[in-house]
Every structure is written in C-alpha cells, then in structure tokens.
C-alpha cells in the first residue's frame, strides 16, 4: 500500500492517535501540519492520495481548506475526509458542499475514520 496520506490537524493528541491507527491499518501518513495554509499548498503541490482535515484549525476551518484544495487542483485532486470533534452533524452537509469526499466524527479509536479511509480507497 503506497497511498500518500496528508493530515492537517492542530491537535497533537488527535494527530498521534490518527497516525498510529492509520499506520496499524497499513497507511502511511507522509505529511502532517497544523497550519492550514501550508496544508493547502502541500496538498496542491504534492497531490497526495488523501487529505484528512480537521474542522477547526488555527486561522481557517477545515471546510475552507477543503475548498481551497479543490480550487487549487482545478476541481480534481486528492480525496478529502473532514473529521470533526463536534457532534453537530450540520457539518456533514457542509462538508459535502465544500467538496469533501467524506465526513466523520473523531473518536479515540479512530473507527469512523478508518472505515471512511477504507471505503474511499476501495472505491478507487
């Protein structure tokens, strides 16, 4: 599995947990940042297979980052999953509108995320 996964996440705990579960599942997180602008730039430049975004980032929301990546890549580009620590599911609708491929809640065991990642890669 040589899928390139980027994570844009400001919470170090969440980042550690996500990296660990993804690597256990066989995915390599090749880049991570807490900075939204850098995340956008990297994602557009390096065209990873998947970008995992947090909804609340310093300076921007995950939705905005998502939108900027999509714009930067001219509509195509990496798969994007937006994760949220909130339980307010309004975001699910918003995420899809902003061009995200999936949306899931953050949990301590990363189960929704892993499921979403698997589904995205199995879809191709």
């Amino acid at each position, binding site marked *: 599995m040589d899928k390139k996964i980027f994570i844009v996440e400001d919470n170090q705990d*969440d980042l550690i947990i996500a990296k660990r579960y993804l690597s256990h599942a066989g995915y390599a997180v090749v880049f991570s940042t807490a900075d939204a602008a850098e995340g956008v730039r990297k994602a557009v430049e390096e065209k990873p297979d998947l970008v995992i975004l947090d909804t609340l980032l310093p300076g921007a929301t995950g939705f905005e980052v998502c939108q900027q990546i999509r714009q930067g890549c001219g509509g195509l580009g990496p798969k994007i999953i937006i994760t949220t620590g*909130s*339980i*307010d599911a309004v*975001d699910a609708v918003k995420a899809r509108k902003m061009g995200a491929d999936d949306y899931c809640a*953050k949990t301590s065991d990363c*189960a929704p995320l892993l499921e979403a990642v698997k589904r995205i890669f199995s879809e191709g």
Partner: protein
Amino acid sequence: MENFKNFKITTKFIIWFLFISLFPLGIATVVSYKSSRMVLEEEVKNSLLAVTDSKANQVEGFFQKTKNDAINLSLTPEVIDAAEKFTNAIQSYGLRSPEYNVLAQKFIPMFSYYQKLSGYNDIIFISLDGEVIFSANNSKRNESLYEAVLNNRKSELAETFIKAKASGEMEISNVERHSESNEGVIFIVSPIFKQTNCIGFVAFEISNRGIYEFVQDYSNLGNTGEAVIVAKIKEEAVYITPLRFDPDAAFKKKIKINSREGREIEKALRGVKGSGISTDYRGQKVLAVWRSLPTYRLCMIVKIDTKEVFAAAKKLRNVLLKVSLLLIVIIVIIAFSLARSISSPIKNLTQISKIISDGELSARVKIDTKDEIGELAVSFNQMTDKLVEAKANVEKKNEEVEEQKRLLEESNKELDNFVYTVSHDLRAPLRGIDGLVKFIEEDYADKLDSQGKDYLKKIRTGANRMKQLIDDLLALSRISRIKNPYEEADMNELVQSVIGRIEFDIEKHNVELRVASDLPVVRCDKIKIQEVFLNLINNAVKFSSKNKVVPPRVEVGYNDTPEAHEFYVRDNGIGIDKKYHKEVFGIFKRLHTQEEYEGTGAGLSIVKRIIDDHKGSIWIDSEPGKGAAFYFTIPKKLPEKKKLGQILLDDGVVSEEELKNALEKQDIKEV
C-alpha cells in the same frame, strides 16, 4: 318614506321647509279664497236682490199705473158715451159712413190726449160681437176679433177680449210682439157698462218700451250685470227687453223653458223667488236672482257674471299664490344654505376620514364652529391623534419584536457556535486521554501490573463517561433549540421505526415487546415524538432487562381521552420509588448505580422537554418491584407554533430531517 331617508341633507331640508311653510300657507290660501268667495257671493247676492226688488217695483209700478189708468178710463162717462155713440153709429150707419167719420173725428183728439197721458200705444173700442169699432191709431179698425180667433190668427187682443167678455171683468193679455214696431205689447181689455148693461169693451195697447229704461239702467250692476225680463210664450221663454250683450234680443231671443238655461225662468214663472249660480243665455256662469212679476205673468232675472263677482277673490288668491311662489324661492334658498352649513362640515369630515383611511394620518379636520358638528370634528381629530399614537406604538412594538427576533436569531447562532465549540473543544482532550491511555495499555502491557492496568481502565472509563455527559448535554440543548412544524403522524409507523432502530438491544436482552395494534394518527412534531418513544422504549428495555426474576417484557399502549392522546410505555423491571417520580425527569438524575444501568438521565429530560413543548403532560405509574409505566399525553388541539422548525446557517438552510440523517450516519460510525 324609505327613499326619503336616503336623500341628501339639502334635499331633506328643502322638503321639510317647504312642507312646514307651504302647508299652512296653502290652507290659508284655500280658506281665504273660499271665504272671500262666500262673502262676495253673499254681498253681491244681497245687492242683486235689492236691485231686483227695486226694478221689479219700477216695472210693476209702471204696469200697475197703466192698468189703473185703464180701469179709471173705462169708467169715465166720456168713454162710456163714446162707446155708446160708436156702437150706435156703426149699427145705424156702418163703419165707413160719414156719420161715423164725424163721430170718430170728434173723439180722436180726446183719445189722443188720453193716449199720451198714460203712454198707451192705442185705445181701441170693441163691440159686444167682437168688431173693432174704433182705434185711436186706426191700426185695428175694421178688424173682427171673433174672426181672428176663428181663423186661428194669433192675437192676444182677441183672446183677452174673449176672456173679458166671458168674465165680465177687466182682463190682461200676455205679451205680444207688435208686428211692425217689433215691440212687446200688452192689451188690457175692460168691459164698458152703462148702468148695469155691458155696452162694449175698451182695449188699451200698452208698449213694453216703457220698461226699457228700467232694464237698461245698469247702475249697481257693474260691468256685466243686467236685469232681464222674460215672458212665457207658448213653451218658450222670450226675452222681451233688450239685453246688455244683445240689444236686438227683445222678442227675438228665446230659450226652451225646460232647458238648462231656462230652469230659473221656469221657477220664477211659477212664482218662486230665488238666487244662485247658474248659466245665462251666453253660456256664462252668472250669479243670478230671480222673481216673478205677477201682474203681467212675467219674470225678472237680475244677474252678474261670477267672473266679475269673484274677481276680488281671485285677485286675493293670485296674490297669495305669488307670495307662495316667492316664499318657495326664499325657503329653498334658506333651506339650501342652512343644509349646506350643516352638510358641508360633515362632507369635509367624510373627506378627511377618507384621506386618513387611505393612510394619510397627518390630515386633520378644520374646526370653524363650536356646535355639535364642531365637537364631532374635535373628537374626530382626537381620535385620529390617538390612531397616530397607536400606530406609532404598534410600529415601535413591531420594531421591538423585530429586534427581539434578531437578538433571538443571534443568540441562536451564538448558541450554535457555542455548542459547536464546546462539543469540539471539550471532547478533544477526552479523546486524547482515552486514545493515549489505550496506547499505554497496548504498548506497555507487559510493564504494568494489574493495579496499573486497573487505574488506566478507570481513567478511560472516566473519560468516556465525561464524553457521554457532554454528548447528552448537547443533545438536550439541540432538542430544545430546534422546532419542527406539526404534522399528521401515524403512531403505528412511528413506533415501528423506533423499534427498528433498537432491534439489536431488544434481541440482545431477549425482551418481549408488545405494541398496541391500533395507535392513532396524531398531529405532532413527528421527529421529536419519535425521540420520545425511542428514549422511553430504550429505557424500558434497559430496566426490564435488569430484572433477573421475570423475563423482560415491554408494552406500548394507548388510551383515547376527550382532550388528548394518551400513550404509555410499561416495563416489568424493578420499578421506581414514588419519591423519585418527579426527579427522574431532572437532568442527569441517576437513580441507579452505574454498574446496573448504562447511560445518564438525559433521555428522560429530553422526553419531558418534548412533551412540555407539545403542552402535554408526562408522569410515572410505578412502585419498586412492580415495574414502571411512563405515561404521556399529546393534546388533540395543538397550539400552532411559529415556523422556527428550520435553523438558519451561514450558507443555506438545513432541515431537521437532514440533521437527523447526518446524526444517524455518525452514530453508525461511532459504533
């Protein structure tokens, strides 16, 4: 009368004024005209009567005098002597004998004198056998009166002679028209006696010309009055004197006695005196007085045109009519201006009220007077002021409401943000704790003793518990924040969908679930009532499954009450002590130790809040050890709520339905 009500004030005033003024005036006019007519008629009648009597006396006097003269003359010795001599001369010598002529010549001067003295036309001697033996004028000489009668020649003289001969007394003839002079003549025939022997007759021919001067005297008779003398000749009434309007009428004009014009003549000829309105020979209406002139069987009518009689009354009436006409004009003008003075401020008021009702609230009525209309205008203006004030108040209130709405929306949005932030920020450290402790458990399992592992487990349990509390809190805030419009919901379908969602738990705990088959269709917030059933059934499943004595059983039922739909969810669990029946609906009320029951008390708080929102009620029927039944009602008549069922977001509107779907998706992922 119905129409009168709808007339304009001006019209009403004019009608009333005219009625009030003209009605008495009209009566006064009629009464005064009638009474003046009556007075005039009476006065003129009296004057006519006086004229009639005076003229009748004159005429009668004239005829009486001629009659008396005739009588006297017939008794004079000269007349007796003349009669005797003429008779003898005729008998002895014949009519045309010189002896007779000598005799005639001898007497003519004397009779001419008598003739002149008494105004006779002629003095005639008639023999016993009806021969005219002398005529002062020579007019009748040689006539034989018997012959005239025998030959049926109309001759009053002959008829009167025969009468006088039969009666042996003086007789007076009817009026006869003189064939040459066209005058009326009357004959008085008187027997001449010598001692006691009738030796002949003397006849005086009297002209009626003598009475012309009486008739033609029109003094006291105005312009149209006249006296008319009529004789009855055969069945006709003959005017024997000239008429005022027909000077040649004497003996030419005649009318039928039984005709309309002849009625009064007929009465007068019968000797009935009278007066009244009648029609004269010209067909004119006249006021007439009639009486008879008995001596010569004549009648006299004195009359005057009613036109002249009533001219004064008519003049009075015309004056009154002119006054009325003038009054009408004046009254119409007064009524019009008076009505205008009342109606124009009212019109003004109406106009202003129209302007105001069209929304121009600054308009005010101009107040010129202090009468009732002025007062009306004042209070109208006051009312308008109040209206402006009230409108301003309403607008202010509306603004306040708008402001509050805006604030509410703002605070709603703030709450959204707050919930979002809280859920994000509070849950993040808990995820870290749980996730990292799990890593310790995984990575350092061989370095930890059981005590350490237990501590770590307790840390993770605490963190999860904390996460659950936060989630419940947020769920509760979301429930009270979001309102949906009421809709008809089939409770059978609704309960079945709830059961579908917790099927796993029901099977896991082997719960016997009974649902009443005939649940109604209820108007409610469908999504929230679903939440109610979910929580209640879920609780019931949990509680009943903790009862280790009997197999768990849950029942969903329904009672129809007049005011509300009543549902209940009953379990056969351990039951709830009465003292906790109110407390269970408080948030995070734990009635049982965590070991026995999962979750927190937020579920029942949510249920109570939803039922409260529906203005329904919720209560528990339970005793420890006897299971518990949760009852709730939904009123049949729900107050319609404002449409706040959708919440506004930055980039669009999301309905509760979409939210729900999203939540469900999330739930699945969380498992």
